[in-house]
């Protein structure tokens, strides 16, 4: 059976920290994009055509929401990564106990 332990203790800890930070920050970014925050306007991928809209801000709002969904999906990926790192941490701890 292939060993499930592939990261060392330090890498797993870094993984957990990065995942927690990623989840929190990406969820917040997603929420801010969802409420069409003006400060994040420059990060929305609009083009010249979007300004020829018949129904003024709706196209831009749609783009905002698309980015926010991207952020939420990325946050979910980080949550999975966090879970994986946490398992690695537990496996590392168990290995430490067994060697002693």
């Amino acid at each position: 059976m292939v060993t499930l332990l592939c990261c060392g203790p330090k890498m797993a800890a870094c993984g957990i920290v990065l995942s927690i930070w990623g989840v929190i920050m990406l969820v917040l970014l997603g929420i801010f994009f969802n409420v069409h925050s003006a400060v994040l306007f420059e990060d929305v991928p609009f083009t010249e055509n979007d300004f020829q809209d018949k129904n003024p801000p709706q196209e831009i709002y749609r783009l905002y929401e698309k980015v926010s969904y991207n952020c939420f999906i990325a946050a979910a990926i980080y949550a999975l990564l966090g879970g994986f790192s946490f398992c690695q941490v537990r496996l590392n701890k168990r290995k430490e106990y067994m060697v002693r």
Partner: protein
Amino acid sequence: MALIFQSEEMCLVQLFFQSESGYCCISELGELGLVQFKDLNPGTTAFQRKFIKEVRRCEEMERILFALLFFLPDPLQSVIEKVDKDLKEINSSHEALKRNLTELLEMKYLLQMIQDFFEETPIDLPDRLTFSSHSLTPSSLSSLCRFVAGVIKQERFPAFERVLWRVCRGNFFLRHSEIQARFEDPVATVEILKKEVFIIFLQGEQFKGKIGKICEGFGLTASHSKALNHCFICDHVILVFFSPKVLNQTNEHRHNVLTSAAVNIQNWKTKVKKMKAIYHTLNLCSIDITQKLVIAEIWCPVSDLSEIHSALIKGSEKSGSSLHPVLHRIESQQTPPTFNRTTSFTSSFQTIIDSYGVGDYQEINPAPFTIITFPFLFAVMFGDCGHGLIMTLFATWMILQEGHFKRLKNELSDTLFSGRYILLLMGLFSVYTGLIYNDCFSKSLSIFASAWNVRAMFQPTGPWTNHTVHSSVTLQLDPVSPGVFSGSPYPFGIDPIWNLSSNKLTFLNSYKMKMSVIFGVVHMLFGIMLSLGNYIHFREPRNILLQFVPEVTFMLALFGYLVFLIIFKWCAVPSSASRRAPSILLHFINMMMFSYPESSDSFLYGSQKRVQIFLVVTALLMVPWMLLVKPLIILKEQKKEQRSTKELVSWQKKRNSESIQHLEVNMGDVFVHQAIHTIEYCLGCVSNTASYLRLWALSLAHAELSEVLWKMVPHVALSARAYLGSLMLTVIFAIFAILTVTILLIMEGLSAFLHALRLHCKFAGVPVTLFAEFSPEMSQ
């Protein structure tokens, strides 16, 4: 807690204790770590001290311990020496056993070969058979001739054979075979040797002698036919069988001795170090004539006298002496050493201040103020609430994991760990300034509604039309137009709309530069106020008049007025007058050059010309006051003193005088000293105010770095129109996180830390003796 504002009050105490209890008392005092011993035998060299023998013994023990460590992969003297002796014995017996084993093994193979040889049938003659005349069968050989048998290294065998041939002229019969097992070379245990067994049949006594000599020359032990018989074989076999067991047991014993030593070795090292320190200290004390009493002089804080007394009593009881030590406080004209009592929280700030120079005895200690000013100045330069939050969390984690960190001995993590409280405060203040600058990972937070309104710029209320919007590259919001600026500014911090504007830097630069100058002037004034505190404490009212007043006036007249101008302009000039707003820089320069324009409409307020002339003249008058008045007064006093020699006046600060005799004051020195002080102060004012502009420079650098990082990293992923945008975002966020930590947190953090340190160096004092408490554990 008024204690930490000044260094502790110290007193000189004489201790008398019996010689027998000397060791225990000093060890108790060492545990306390509150006293500093004065050297009472300053004239003696190291060899003349009384306890030199004991110090030598301790050093010998340290040497043995160090050698012991070499064997380990990591009371006292007799225990240590016994372990040393044991180890030497074990090593030598190990060597001997190994040698024996090798010999016996060789013998075993030899006997086996001979056995085989004699059991062979006569018909099988081996290939390499050398004999002289008749063909002899092996069985007849054994009855007629003698034989010599032995073991030789395989590589030397050809040489051996050749020598034998030449010496015996071919009158022998040699048989040899290789031993299958491998031998370890006892000298260099790495080599594995191949050995061969040989047996030589010969005729005649002379040959035996010759061959014996040849074997000696080759360094082999050869055995003769008489010695080999079956019983011998059995004995040898038994011995060979048991030797490995004996060897194993020796190995095990050695291993046990070493492990038991390893358990104790750290303890022993500590104990020996403590002993050495105690004997060094005993060398500092003086022994009286009767050889029964030890006298020591110590500096200690007044508030700890009772603790020291009880420690001494404990020490004397431990050593079983009946008399308690005597504490006797004596007066001294010497300046006591400076001692600042610190907790684990304040110690890191105290270290920062001490690195510039320790203050004089009982001067005001700037460390408690540094607890706030240092993190604050750092935060002004670092100002980003996202990064500040990460810093705070990291510092909190370090504080909570104190136990784990204390066990790590890595130098880098030690430095980081000892600054954990500083990091915590820096992080908290950074969050605060980040909220004021409204900067979180380079984006602003709109906690409240912005005070600017873009819609009001359009047609009915403002000048813009649809056409304006489509045909311009940039548009500027005009706060004078009704409704654009709501009139009540953003409640806390910078308005988030500035984050989207392209002239953000023009506004922020002006704001941050002025803010830096204000902070600089306030910080410097605060430093001068501390010196006022010193003058009051040391009761030097003359200094207040001669130094403090002109310093403060100079500073306030010039730079205080500059601060006033800044704040006045912020408050009094409305946005409708923004086109003709006066430039503070130009006004300040003109003020110093006394050049005023003809028309009076560019002034900030009515009587500006008169006020400014008055202030500059006052400031200029302060310079000769600082430069000349004090030395002239000293000169006058000296003349008066020379006339009446009975009067005892010392103009030097009392705390620097070594003796009560009055000092001849060299007038030239006084004038030069005062001139240096004046120039240093005046020029320092100007240069320090300018150097506070680094607060602006670094915060600008941090903001720009942060913005560039956002534009180059997450922006790429967020503005991707592709469907795999979320995967890209995942990877890019990891890169963003790593770059944020390394560049923005570590690099910028260290840079801001360094500059904040530089801004604090004005609190440095004259280097004076720091209280060096006697505490052997702390030297580890």
